[in-house]
């Protein structure tokens, strides 16, 4: 028996995980794909009615709310990634130097990303509050114009981006820092011999060598940013007036708010394709940049 297991280790070891993947992932995705071709309100009495691609046609062709949510998803992800990469790079360079208390500081920077997003959302909700929130008070004390933050359609999504940047910039910084620390010292010595300024060294030596690390970090982060749910749902539920409704939120609202399971499923299939497409595109761009 044990010899048989050893001979077939390749199959035996992953078997439980594979069964889990088939039952809990592969089958549900196929089921969602099937539901996306039907009209169904989750009722046990009226079964799902096959309507072909109608849900897709409705979403892609007629649904303004869908296209707005696509735009918001990319707006949110793009803005958050630019902010996180730039600030993360600055923070990483600053942390790549010895000073007393550095390890403690690095540890504290971990906290925003491990803290429970819903709880974090509640704290920011209080800070964003236009009249009693600390942020407006802070702006006022600096004689800067105040904002309505989440209460206004114009600023709500950008406010949520701010929370995402707060949460995830430290992760960017720590990944970039790990890349900085693992760099060989020869190119830096060569640059010094050549009399390069600190800025030249950073621009022509450090940054090119960091590119693979940053590229990978951006891909990982964008997968999660596109799917951001907890922060948005707990703070705005997609409002005010749909101003923060990203694809994930719209899918949730269609499915578990209006119980339009068919439409929700077709949206989720499109959403899945978009995330997959972004990952493939970014991976392709990263490889192109390396060669």
């Amino acid at each position: 028996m044990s010899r048989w297991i050893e001979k077939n280790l390749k199959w035996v070891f992953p078997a439980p995980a594979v069964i889990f993947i088939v039952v809990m992932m592969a089958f549900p995705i196929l089921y969602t794909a099937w539901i996306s071709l039907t009209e169904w309100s989750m009722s046990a009495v009226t079964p799902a009615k096959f309507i072909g691609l109608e849900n897709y046609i409705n979403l892609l062709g007629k649904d303004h709310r869908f296209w707005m949510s696509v735009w918001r998803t990319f707006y949110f992800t793009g803005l958050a990634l630019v902010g996180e990469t730039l600030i993360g790079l600055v923070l990483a360079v600053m942390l790549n130097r010895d000073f007393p208390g550095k390890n403690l500081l690095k540890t504290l920077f971990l906290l925003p990303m491990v803290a429970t997003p819903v709880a974090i959302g509640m704290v920011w909700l209080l800070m964003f509050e236009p009249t009693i929130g600390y942020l407006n008070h802070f702006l006022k004390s600096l004689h800067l114009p105040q904002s309505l933050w989440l209460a206004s359609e114009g600023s709500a999504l950008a406010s949520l981006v701010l929370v995402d940047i707060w949460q995830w910039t430290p992760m960017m910084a720590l990944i970039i820092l790990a890349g900085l620390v693992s760099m060989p010292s020869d190119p830096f010595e060569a640059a010094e011999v050549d009399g390069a300024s600190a800025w030249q060294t950073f621009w022509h030596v450090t940054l090119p060598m960091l590119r693979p690390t940053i590229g990978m970090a951006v891909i990982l982060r964008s997968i999660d940013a596109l799917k951001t749910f907890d922060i948005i749902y707990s703070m705005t539920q997609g409002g005010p007036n749909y101003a923060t409704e990203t694809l994930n939120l719209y899918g949730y609202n269609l499915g578990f708010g209006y119980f339009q399971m068919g439409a929700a499923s077709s949206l989720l299939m499109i959403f899945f394709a978009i995330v997959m497409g972004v990952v493939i595109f970014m991976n392709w761009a990263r490889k192109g940049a390396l060669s």
Partner: protein
Amino acid sequence: MNPRKKVHPALNVLYVVGLVLFFVAFMFPFAWMIISSFKTQSEILTMPPKWIFTPTFKNYVEVFEGQDFLMYMLNSFVIAVGATLAALVLGLPAAYAIARRRLPSLGFTILVARIVPGITFLIPWFMIFSRLKMVDTMPALILAHMLVTMPFVVWVMIPFFEGIPNDLIDAARVDGCTEQYAFLRVVLPISGPGIITGSIMAFVFSWNNFMFSMILSGVHTKTLPVAIFNFLSYSEVNWGGLMAASVIITLPVLVLALMTQKYIVRGLTAGAVKG
């Protein structure tokens, strides 16, 4: 690696100021959460804020008396531990096989699990669990949370198992033991750091999970993130209670993170940096 150059003193000042600003910006929400949790509603509603006030524990008392918070904590804990242990049992052998027997397609499938939006699974799960009368039961929630924890454990462990020298396993096999025995007795004991990293992160992800719990939990299995969110539905927001509840839910994760920071850094940066 870091060329030491003479730095202008003004730059040094700028550097320190910059670090302090970063520190304040990233720590402020935590400080605000803790401070507000000890204030009365009227103190919270006062702007400019009072920095000196008599702390009240009323909010914390209210949270535990008004809702069954102890039960929600226990639920969150049981589900997180269950989802982590199950992820290890399924994920460790799978990661070992992927790392040592070159199964790229399985590795890719597990990566896809990270990419698929979670709600895609929720509609079928909700239906199936409803039919099996499993909504609002621990097994349903643990299974759902495993979707997050299991791929993560595999993701962290593959490079670990790849790094184990072949000689070590071969030596054990020369001594006459099977590979699965070598896996249990040789490979797992030296993989401690990887297993700890994977477990801590899996626990944190499960503890923090909101979406799956919101749909699949009910009166008996409500977890902390769902309970906190329910606070909002009252007509006037009880900010003090909300902040106290937020402290209660984040404190365990924050303490865990502070105690195990070196593992967490490894877990969060896994896959992005080679080595």
